[in-house]
């Protein structure tokens, strides 16, 4: 049943520094409210891959109060992460990339959809993480991005998986999308 546009989307406001209270309260030190915090999926086969994301502001200072959510549509895989003091990153356990390809026609090249909210961020920022050693040249979305900036969307290999650095501002600013 179709309809005409009648309403405007509610305007966004910053998630603020205490976003974890709402989304992952036990992480914020609030125990016993929910039977379980919603962190999302873990890889079905326990041998997943580690993805460590770091975020930096315009001065190059680490952003440690954000909330990141990822979505891998072809795998119906969704997860949240918050800053982890041990790894000094936002860690994720994701399914190994060699198990992704061919899930849907859009997903011929593996990538992760990413959403970032934090104090100082007025509306959630969207980006994507692509992987090294993939034929990323054929990806239609990557080809919309100026060649000199495409590197900001490609993860780096590490000894236990991948790392991905997000620069909110500045010379190395990550590409953010209007989706």
């Amino acid at each position, binding site marked *: 049943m179709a309809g005409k546009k009648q309403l405007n989307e509610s305007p966004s*406001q910053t998630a603020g520094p205490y976003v974890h209270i709402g989304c992952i309260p036990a992480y914020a030190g609030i125990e016993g409210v929910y039977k379980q915090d919603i962190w999302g999926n873990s890889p079905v086969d326990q041998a997943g891959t580690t993805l460590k994301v770091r975020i930096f*502001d315009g001065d190059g200072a680490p952003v440690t109060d954000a909330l990141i959510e990822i979505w891998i549509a072809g795998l119906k895989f969704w997860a949240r992460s918050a800053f982890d003091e041990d790894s000094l990153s936002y860690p994720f356990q994701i399914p190994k990339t060699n198990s992704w390809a061919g899930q849907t026609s859009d997903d011929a090249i593996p990538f992760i959809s990413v959403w970032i909210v934090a104090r100082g961020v007025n509306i959630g920022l969207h980006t994507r993480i692509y992987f090294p050693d993939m034929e990323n040249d054929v990806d239609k979305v990557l080809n919309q991005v100026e060649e000199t900036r495409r590197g900001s969307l490609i993860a780096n290999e590490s000894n236990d998986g991948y790392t991905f650095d997000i620069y909110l501002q500045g010379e190395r600013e990550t*590409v953010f999308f209007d989706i």
Partner: protein
Amino acid sequence: MTGDSYFRPRDRTWHPVSHTPEYKSSVLRSPQRPLVYFPSTSSELSGPVFGHELIGELDNDLIRNFAKNGKMPIGPRIIIHGKVLDEFGKPVPNTLVEIWQANASGRYRHKKDGYLAPLDPNFGGCGRTLTSDDGSYEFTTIQPGAYPWPNHENAWRPMHVHFSVFGPSFAQRLITQMYFEGDPLIPLCPIVNTIPDQRAVDQLVARLDLDKAVSMDCLAYHFDVVLRGKYSTLFENKMEGN
């Protein structure tokens, strides 16, 4: 088929822009380059689904979900209720809504909040629910106090409840804040003032709802959240959605 569904770009004259220097934290956390647009793919149109088995009985009751030994948190008892709708006015059913807030004194239960106002031992400050088939949701809580913050000298946030909302599509994901009708701090707040259009600000102000209030028990506020609507190329000429 997803081939004929898409989202129109967000109205960036309605939402706050990234660089809003009166809100100090945005200065170093705002991208300076333009956002790169691309048409919706299945990754933007699809999204996670959260089942009812995740939600506990008291998850939407902030008066009871942290309270110890039958005690109650201090402060004005309120119901916050409304609907999650899309831009076409259609309900968004079975979708996850998470809220968080300070206590009645304006103190957050977070290790980073050093405000001198006390914590309430019977108040956590978080709640979650799934909307019903008609898009409606309801929380029972204590009205939060205004909250001082270091943005500038004598800076106070208006009374507010943070809302995190999912829709069926990843591109609909929205975090916003709900304010309370009549609060004189609203027009003075740099975070509120990141929103360019007064009509958009008004859309974030909850209205007193005496019909929903419970006599001798609690007041109520009404607040709807509107998410982006999904358009369909099949109806392109009529600018309709599906």
